[in-house]
């Protein structure tokens, strides 16, 4: 049992580390392209693999620890400068990431021999063999350093010293006199500060009695673009001296860039700090809390009822009034509690961006198309569960964009576009929803191609020429794939219809806009959380239902004169529109109840379509928690789940989209 929970912890921790590593390797790649690789980034990657090795070794996951061990060796050579930091290294690192993900998945599935680290391992070892011979090491003729100091430098420090020289940084010997009691803190402070403007290459304790009792002396080897005076100014302390150890000083104007580039480092450190203040919580625990809150909401309703009854029975007695105040107070507190718990479930969308970035890299390699993925709005927050569910649909859309949207470099050149295609992924909040857009600058949806393909598949009569709106509808219909041949990327018979289904499963909807030659944009709109939603409670006959407000556009009282039939199907004339009428009892095949005097129409929107649900009563708005009815009752058309509204029985939550689908299909079959 203990072992199992340790394994679970390992998996979640490893996944967290890998997630972060993906980001780090990506920044490594960018920094290689910009030629400003920061040593601390390589160090960080090294450390992360090191901890992966550590924890996997501790738990006896030999496959993982064995692999990370080799990788660690390679990274060690990398940070010592024995291997050049190149795209090749990045490629191997990315392949290693894929492998790590695979091996962890294996661990979850309890398999051990599905994945062979061999091929990647060979590449890692090739890199290790490739050690760059750097003859200049260990001799620093240009530096005013005594032999003893040189000998006390570690291999890594030597390498860094060398790098700093190559980059033309100023090199200083910074001498600090610190108090015995506080030297560790002060030393760290000073090092941090110095590291923002350069690199502390080595920290050497020094034995000087002259400093006086209770004092310690340190020498820092410091590489920077700053002058000695500037260093002292930055440190703002008196017991520090800085002397240059370069014999010939060839000043370079790298001061500003250095300062600028060190900024992200600072940000990194603060983010690390906040990380250590987080607690990892199983989302199920939060679900339980929300359940309890849901029950408390019902209890509150009961308290309110009792207070009303008390007042009705005894008039405005003191007890009755106090009780009703308590109920109001309770409601406020509960709302606050609810809001707080929901906030804990929200995580930034940026979490899946990393994953998608990895995929785009892979796909652009496979398709030989150059694609850049641009992100924005990574801080936009969404329910953790939804983020998980979102990555598949997003991957699919991006795959489509690379496979069908983005043209080859030649084609792009001809069209006067830049060689590299761009996919923009942006997220932002709009009201109570989160909008996620995937926009490519490819060729757009080609009506002609869609039309051809649709005919081939019998989705379109031969004589019909669809407009763009119809084309988009066709794209979302089951079994449609516009690729001439089924490719590994977007073929496989899974189409946008699945994407649409997934999104509507999350109570969201998807829309598309496209311009031929200019590109396509998919827009996904989602509620921030599924945990608690606003719903309208309606009644038909004896039964109440909850309809999520997100799918309702308006409610109207039915004017019988506006009901007509078209081909025996009921429709309603709502202002200038004619929309189908849906009777819940018909869809659910319940006995027809006597129609009340007055009926209402709940207009629901499904994508761009509307339909009207006929109900006998609108019983008010309420916040509800949609609950699953278990595996067996999971896929009943028209029903999203069940909820409690403070009455003796649960009520079913209507899934407007599948309800409309079910209703119209039912009629088609009947007709």
């Amino acid at each position: 049992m203990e072992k199992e929970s340790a394994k679970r912890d390992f998996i979640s921790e490893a996944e967290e580390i890998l997630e972060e590593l993906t980001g780090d390797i990506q920044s490594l790649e960018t920094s290689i392209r910009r030629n400003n690789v920061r040593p601390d980034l390589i160090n960080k990657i090294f450390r992360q693999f090191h901890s992966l090795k550590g924890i996997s070794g501790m738990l006896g996951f030999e496959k993982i620890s064995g692999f990370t061990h080799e990788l660690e060796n390679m990274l060690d050579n990398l940070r010592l400068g024995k291997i050049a930091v190149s795209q090749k290294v990045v490629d191997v690192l990315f392949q290693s990431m894929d492998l790590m993900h695979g091996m962890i998945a294996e661990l979850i599935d309890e398999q051990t021999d599905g994945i062979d680290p061999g091929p990647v391992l060979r590449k890692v070892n090739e890199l290790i063999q490739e050690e760059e011979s750097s003859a200049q090491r260990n001799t620093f003729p240009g530096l005013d350093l005594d032999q003893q100091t040189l000998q006390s430098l570690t291999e890594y420090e030597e390498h860094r010293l060398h790098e700093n020289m190559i980059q033309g940084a100023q090199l200083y010997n910074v001498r600090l006199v610190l108090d015995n009691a506080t030297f560790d803190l002060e030393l760290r402070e000073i090092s941090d500060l110095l590291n923002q403007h350069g690199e502390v290459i080595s920290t050497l304790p020094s034995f000087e009695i002259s400093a006086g009792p209770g004092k310690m002396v340190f020498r820092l080897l410091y590489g920077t673009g700053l002058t000695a005076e500037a260093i002292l100014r930055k440190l703002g302390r008196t017991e520090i001296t800085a002397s240059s150890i370069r014999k010939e000083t060839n000043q370079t104007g790298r001061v500003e860039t250095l300062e600028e580039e060190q900024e992200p480092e600072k940000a990194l450190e603060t983010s690390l700090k906040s990380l250590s203040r987080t607690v990892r919580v199983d989302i199920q625990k939060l679900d339980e809390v929300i359940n309890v809150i849901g029950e408390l909401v019902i209890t509150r309703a009961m308290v309110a009822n009792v207070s009303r009854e008390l007042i009705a029975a005894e008039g405005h007695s003191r007890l009755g009034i106090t009780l009703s105040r308590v109920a109001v107070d309770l409601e406020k507190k509960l709302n606050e509690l609810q809001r707080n718990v929901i906030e804990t479930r929200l995580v930034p969308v940026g979490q899946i961006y990393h994953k998608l970035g990895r995929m785009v890299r892979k796909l652009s390699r496979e398709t030989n198309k150059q694609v850049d993925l641009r992100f924005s709005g990574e801080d936009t927050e969404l329910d953790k569960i939804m983020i998980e569910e979102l990555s598949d649909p997003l991957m699919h859309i991006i795959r489509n964009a690379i496979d069908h949207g983005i043209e080859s470099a030649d084609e792009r050149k001809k069209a006067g576009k830049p060689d590299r295609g761009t996919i923009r992924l942006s997220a932002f909040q709009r009201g109570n929803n989160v909008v996620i857009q995937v926009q490519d600058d490819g060729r757009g949806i080609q009506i002609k191609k869609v039309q051809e393909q649709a005919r081939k598949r019998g989705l379109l009569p031969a004589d019909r020429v669809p407009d763009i709106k119809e084309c988009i509808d066709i794209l979302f219909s089951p079994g449609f794939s516009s690729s001439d041949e089924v490719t590994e990327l977007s073929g496989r018979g899974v189409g946008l219809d699945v994407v649409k289904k997934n999104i509507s499963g999350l109570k969201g909807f998807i829309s598309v806009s496209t311009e031929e030659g200019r590109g396509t944009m998919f827009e996904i709109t989602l509620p921030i959380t599924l945990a608690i939603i606003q719903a309208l409670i309606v009644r038909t006959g004896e039964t109440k239902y909850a309809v999520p407000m997100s799918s309702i556009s308006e409610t109207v009282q039915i004017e019988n004169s506006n009901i007509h039939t078209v081909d025996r199907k009921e429709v309603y004339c709502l202002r200038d529109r004619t929309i189908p009428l849906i009777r819940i009892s018909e869809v659910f095949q319940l006995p027809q109840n006597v129609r009340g005097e007055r009926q209402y129409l709940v207009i629901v929107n499904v994508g761009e379509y509307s339909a009207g649900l006929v109900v006998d009563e609108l019983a008010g708005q309420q916040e509800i928690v949609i609950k699953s009815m278990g595996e067996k009752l999971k896929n009943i058309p028209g029903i999203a789940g069940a909820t409690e509204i403070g009455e003796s029985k649960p009520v079913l939550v209507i899934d407007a989209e599948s309800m409309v689908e079910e209703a119209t299909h039912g009629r088609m079959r009947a007709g």
Partner: protein
Amino acid sequence: MNGNESKLPVRSYPQEGKQTELLQRLLAEDSNQEESLPTEVAIPEEQLDVLVFQLGGEHYGIDIHYVAEIVRYKEPAAVPHTVDFLDGIISVRGRMIPVINGRRRLGHEPAQPDKKTRIVVLQDGTEFQGIIVDSTSQVVPLLKKDIEPTPPVVTGFKAEFLEGVFRNRNQLIILLNLQRFLQYV
């Protein structure tokens, strides 16, 4: 068991809803490998405890291992597009539980619920199911060797639901095969 005379053996039940599927699998594997956990597997294999309930004047028994709890009858909310013996769903401590009408499942006439009517809530992994029964009476220990085959008077689809019968004092208790009893789409 340590010599104390308790009729109910110590047994660990999966905690409600706290385990992910993954953990479930891990747990399953765990109990296979490590036989040595004394408090968890102290039951001789040939013995089980049976919850006895009544349906249409007959006594039925199910392995208590699957029983999460027993609640008083409450009216379920009907769910459309499902089998006729599923009366609907009830909420037990915030969890939605599909409820089967035990009488209908066995092909008996359904009865008006009264104050003895109970819903037996069963748990299998993360899935919950309720059975409406006329009443529940007791938990009896049963040695597997005392189970007799079902007498051939029961035929047709119902025969599959039955695991066998056994005698407790002068009661004849029909042991249900829960897996088949609860199998429906």
